[in-house]
């Protein structure tokens, strides 16, 4: 197959590079191809999104009215715990790894990930981990019910699901660490020879930094849950006060993992938004270098703020003050990012295709989540907010209208590149408006519920909370339904539709848009210099090509 789109050295393939392995086992089980592994991750994430979404529907159903109507309180607690675990570790994180697999090699002009066989292993651990985790739902005593934070001593009262939970977390951790190692090794060693760090698209940058966060904190989580395991089965008392242990120590260790973890779920989202907004504003990203520094600053700060989750546990005044101010500092680099996105749009020739709509909603709604975050960072007022629905509202704004919206935006943006077909723009817009209205009906009232004192993680509530809960549930069902439409749109697009061009979007820049759509099974297999003028920020920061030009003149 010849690539008729570009005939520069980048995409010039002499032979047929599109032969995919035949047969299901060879193509999918034994695959080492970054695109196929990316697809596997994305399909897995979508499946888990549906499973976690079904659990959310059960939660909202029970909370539709005060009193107990549909499920036992014990089962309700299993639902809140499992919903969070499935969404965080099964949906959001694998979706980002899937996008990394698909896009990073193409964005840096590499033929594949650096360690393709490890890549296969990273993915195929996940289905086993989640089979194990979800199997606990059918065990005597049921699934883990002590919250995704797994605080002892509560988590230890969970019967034998504790062992399953811990091993599942170990497996997800190993998968994430291997994925992160692969991302770093790829970006550091496999870039096209003339592509410097400051030529990299922002999605690549944010993932590089995210991968370092993963390597720094997933082992901490693994250590903490291992000691939960020995406390449960081997009579140790690391976290058991009666045996001289310290349950609060677990909380410190958990949140030393947990706060960077929330940034692991948002930094790649920042990267996606930083790709999409320039495309549809038809302007290069405003403040590229400050974006890179802001990402690094957020990553650094995320290590030193963890105890803002523990203000109500009690700590010395100096501790409270320190964690309060440190936390508020994160708003500064985050503000830089918001400013730069707005600056990119300023006087741009904007159009509002579905990926852009989701990105714009991201900018507005993620900022609402950021604001409630700064409110909770104030130690004295957090004593009131903590463990209420206000927290639930906060993290759903940053995670659903933040991380998940970015994933959806990225899916619409890159789907034509993956499948070779355009999605139906009208359905995409319906999906957007339906989602965005319903998600606010779903989560905005939860701020009021929290301020009025409704605790989180409860199946029943007193009657003064009834109206807002009913509103929230109606929004929830509507949002759930909208995502069924999303699955339909994706399915339709993969099956057929208007043919996509190589560039897909008029304003799109970047190497991934120089290869045909659908992207051939192998791209950039002739590993060589790439055309930096195809990159949004390629020539601006290209020290290397300057040197080459001077060389030319001397000769």
């Amino acid at each position, binding site marked *: 197959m010849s690539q008729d789109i570009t005939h520069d050295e980048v995409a010039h393939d002499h032979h047929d590079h599109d032969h995919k392995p035949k047969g299901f086992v060879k193509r999918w089980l034994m695959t080492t191809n970054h695109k196929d592994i990316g697809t596997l991750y994305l399909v897995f994430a979508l499946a888990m999104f549906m499973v976690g979404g079904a659990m959310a529907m059960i939660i909202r159903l029970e909370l539709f009215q005060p009193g107990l109507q549909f499920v036992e309180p014990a089962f309700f607690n299993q639902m809140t715990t499992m919903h969070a675990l499935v969404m965080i570790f099964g949906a959001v994180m694998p979706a980002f790894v899937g996008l990394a697999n698909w896009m990073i090699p193409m964005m840096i002009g590499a033929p594949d990930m650096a360690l393709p066989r490890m890549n296969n292993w990273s993915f195929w651990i996940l289905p086993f981990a989640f089979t194990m985790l979800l199997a606990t739902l059918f065990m005597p005593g049921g699934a883990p019910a002590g919250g995704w934070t797994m605080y002892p001593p509560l988590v230890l009262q969970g019967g034998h699901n504790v062992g399953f939970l811990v091993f599942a977390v170990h497996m997800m951790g190993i998968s994430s660490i291997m994925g992160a190692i692969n991302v770093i090794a790829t970006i550091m060693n496999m870039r096209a020879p003339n592509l410097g760090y400051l030529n990299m698209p922002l999605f690549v940058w944010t993932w590089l930094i995210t991968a370092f966060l993963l*390597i720094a904190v997933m082992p901490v989580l693994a250590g903490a849950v291992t000691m939960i395991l020995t406390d449960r089965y081997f009579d140790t008392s690391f976290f058991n006060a009666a045996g001289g242990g*310290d349950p609060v120590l677990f909380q410190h260790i958990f949140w030393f993992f947990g706060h960077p973890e929330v940034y692991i779920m948002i930094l790649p989202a920042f990267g996606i938004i930083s790709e999409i907004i320039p495309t549809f504003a038809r302007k290069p990203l405003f403040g590229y270098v400050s974006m890179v520094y802001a990402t690094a600053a957020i990553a650094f700060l995320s290590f030193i703020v963890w105890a803002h989750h523990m203000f109500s546990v009690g700590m010395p005044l100096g501790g409270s003050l320190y964690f309060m101010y440190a936390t508020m500092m994160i708003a500064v680099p985050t503000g830089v990012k918001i400013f730069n996105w707005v600056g990119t749009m300023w006087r741009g020739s904007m159009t509002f295709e579905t990926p852009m709509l989701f990105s714009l909603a991201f900018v507005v709604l993620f900022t609402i989540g950021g604001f409630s975050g700064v409110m909770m960072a104030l130690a004295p007022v957090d004593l009131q907010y903590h463990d209420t629905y206000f927290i639930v509202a906060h993290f759903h704004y940053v995670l659903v209208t933040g991380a998940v919206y970015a994933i959806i935006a990225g899916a619409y943006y890159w789907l034509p590149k993956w499948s070779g077909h355009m999605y139906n723009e009208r359905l995409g817009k319906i999906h957007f408006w339906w989602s965005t209205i319903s998600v606010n009906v779903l989560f905005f009232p939860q701020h009021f519920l929290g301020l009025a004192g409704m605790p989180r993680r409860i199946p029943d509530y007193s009657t003064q909370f009834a109206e807002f809960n009913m509103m929230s549930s109606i929004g929830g069902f509507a949002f759930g339904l909208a995502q069924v439409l999303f699955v339909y749109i994706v399915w339709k697009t993969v099956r057929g539709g208007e043919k996509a061009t190589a560039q897909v979007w008029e304003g799109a820049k970047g190497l991934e848009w120089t290869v045909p759509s659908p992207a051939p099974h192998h791209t950039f297999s002739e590993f060589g210099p790439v055309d930096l003028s195809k990159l949004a920020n390629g020539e601006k920061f290209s020290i290397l090509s300057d040197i080459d030009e001077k060389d030319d003149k001397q000769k």
Partner: protein
Amino acid sequence: MRKMTNKNKQTEEQVAANRKAARKTAVILAVVALAVFAYSVYVVFDHATK
């Protein structure tokens, strides 16, 4: 280190060399991850035996 030049198209050997360098990066990162794991367990051990 690979040579940074626009002139030489990278050969198969160059890809192989990059992958070799990548394996080295990976081993270092894996050791770091294990060290972080060991250290976090050590911190709790230390705390629990006080």
